């Protein structure tokens, strides 16, 4: 276990440095003058002019060489300081913390809801099969066939407009969280419920399941002691992989429901060329990715020790 943590720590450092540098290079290769873009975000889109852009350029030292800006960022990073946002001047860390808070709540709510939807449906369709299985397959395929913002739009039209149950957008009260989380959950569950179905079907048909029945265990005992855990192993592994795609959904949903998360903030930062914020956000996502990956690996190893030494 310690070997894994050490290795992942190294990976963490490598990823944070790598991602930060990758975004820096990419952002610096973007066309358009950064000073103007930042001035536009600062002073409003109609009020930006040369004077404002020149002022911004001096204030932020944008005419210094790219290399010195990178070096500045790197030395700050070593002292745990992510630098300040070019647009709002606030430290990137606080802004990210605020945005990250909202994104994590949305992601956690979405993932939990998707698990609550996918697992029961997946198991039921594997166990009963027949019409339930076919209809679930049809619904899942349709949900997978549309981009996540379309699911969001339809959810708004149905829940928020026709039945007026939930607010259309914004944040603050838990009611605001329902539609975004539901949209994310549906887009995730559409895939994960079929994975649960396939794994459950595999386990129900496996010879160790049958032999457990042969030994005299009742169907429910067999499922509890042998089925559940054997299904859980590949499903947890899949959820681990799915975590990566969660971010894509989050960016779309945040922009549709104007949810002040990291995805949405990042999209704006890219337009406004707020490089420190983008580096900070990408770094945060890279760190989250490595941490999540490690947690999933540990969970998988705990569930299925056969996976050999925890590499």
């Amino acid at each position: 276990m310690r070997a894994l943590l050490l290795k992942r720590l190294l990976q963490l450092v490598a990823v944070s440095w790598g991602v930060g540098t990758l975004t820096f290079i990419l952002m610096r290769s973007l066309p358009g003058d950064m000073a103007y873009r930042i001035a536009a975000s600062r002073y409003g889109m109609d009020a930006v002019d040369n004077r404002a852009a020149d002022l911004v350029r001096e204030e932020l030292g944008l005419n210094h060489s790219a290399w010195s800006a990178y070096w500045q960022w790197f030395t700050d990073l070593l002292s745990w300081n992510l630098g300040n946002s070019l647009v709002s001047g606030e430290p990137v860390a606080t802004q990210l913390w605020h945005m990250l808070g909202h994104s994590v709540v949305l992601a956690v709510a979405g993932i939990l809801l998707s698990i609550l939807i996918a697992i029961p449906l997946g198991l039921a369709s594997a166990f009963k099969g027949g019409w339930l299985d076919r209809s679930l397959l049809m619904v899942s395929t349709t949900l997978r066939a549309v981009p996540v913002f379309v699911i969001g739009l339809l959810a708004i039209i149905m829940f928020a407009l026709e039945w007026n149950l939930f607010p259309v957008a914004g944040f603050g009260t838990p009611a605001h969280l329902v539609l975004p989380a539901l949209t994310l959950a549906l887009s995730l569950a559409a895939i994960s419920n079929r994975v649960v179905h396939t794994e459950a079907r595999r386990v129900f048909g496996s010879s160790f399941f049958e032999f457990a029945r042969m030994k005299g265990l009742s169907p429910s005992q067999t499922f509890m002691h042998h089925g559940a855990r054997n299904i859980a192993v590949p499903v947890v592994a899949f959820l681990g992989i799915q975590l990566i795609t969660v971010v894509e959904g989050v960016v779309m949903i945040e922009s549709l429901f104007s949810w002040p998360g990291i995805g949405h903030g990042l999209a704006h930062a890219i337009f406004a060329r707020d490089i420190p914020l983008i580096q900070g956000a990408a770094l945060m996502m890279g760190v989250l990715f490595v941490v999540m990956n490690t947690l999933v690996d540990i969970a998988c190893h705990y569930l299925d020790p056969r996976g050999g030494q925890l590499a």
Partner: protein
Amino acid sequence: MSLIHIENLAVYAGNTELLAPISLTLEKGQRLTILGQTGSGKSLLAQAIMGNLPNSLRTEGRVTLFGEEVNAKQRQRFWGRRISMLPQEPWNSLDPLMGAQQQLEQTYRMVAGESAANAQQKAAYTLALQGLQDSGHKRVDQLSGGMAQRVAIACAMAGGAPVLLADEPTKGLDVSRRDQVVQQLMSQSKQGALITITHDVAVARQIGGRMMVIKSGELLEQGNTSDILSAPQHPFTKALIEADPVNWPDKTPASSHKTPLVEVQDLTIGRGNKALSKHLNFTLHQGEVVGVVGDSGCGKSTLGDTLLGVHQAMEGTILRHSQAPLHQWQKLYQDPTAAVSRAVSLATLLEDTVKLHKIDRARIAPLMRQLGLDEALLQRNSEGVSGGELQRFCMLRALLLDPVFLFADEPTSRLDPITAKEVSQLLVDVAKQNGCAVMLVSHDPDLIEKRCDRVIRLDA
């Protein structure tokens, strides 16, 4: 009161008959062996009795257990408690994530209704009885085939079921493990009844009791095991009995071999950094057939691979006295389907070899006749032919390269007895004609005895 009474039990897929109607009765303490080749429908009979046929098949006929006629659904109540079945591959039938002892305990607790403490104590005792006392915590992937089989049997019997159905209990085990499992089965079912399904005549001989011989779903012969084994009526039964290496004719003494091919001095072989066998000294001569015997895990395969240069020798030297190029040192594999690409027809594969080494095509036809391979076979790919035919195709390919050395790694262990006898005979004869030295590896000492000029015994 009979434990099991079956009348005209038959199995159908749709309306094609997979198993012809069979009737049998089993009293307390009796033992029945069902003998037949793989794929002759004997497993279907076991599943039909047990009541767990795949739902795509249907049965006819009546099954009466302990005096009570029960259909498939009702029989589920008896599972584990009154009747228990031991499936073919034990290493697949144990929960891959749970320790052996834990699974045994669980059966005691939930099926036999023991208290947790009792179950734990009983499980430890049963495992110790099997000599598995220190591998209780191990999972299936950490157990050998034999150990897994013994745990599976213990689990099957933990529910106290008097009647035990064992489906190919000795498949894939080497000789010493096989006898151990048979003893365990017979002792467990003393007070109940035992139905054993096997293709191995030696197992049937040890179990005794009554026997039925089945071929492609038909019951050919039934009676006392000793009577049938000594005087088989049906020609198929005769062939099956003769296929047991013990009954093979003795080997004619080989002519002397003089010219050495490869000389091995103080060789230590191993895989990774674990040494398997040390201080090996022998000389292999041209045209000589040498057998290698030993328990599984003693390095039989590794020895062959080291001679071929696939593995590095850990210590000692291998002297090759022949300048034959690399491709004339060939290998036959235990599982031919894993050694031949499924993507293309056998003809294409043959064509590849011929083109690569510019072999004279005229030599193919006579060799194919000798190996009993007909032309039409080549159009199919490796999955479209039987195991025996595929092994003979591999021999064809190897022989076309005029090999000086052929390492045969248990070439017949996956084949059914009759085919195994033919293929092993063919291998030795053809190699001798082409002056090719053969190293034959097997876990069956009788087979080696009857086929090889000389035997090397490896001990772990």
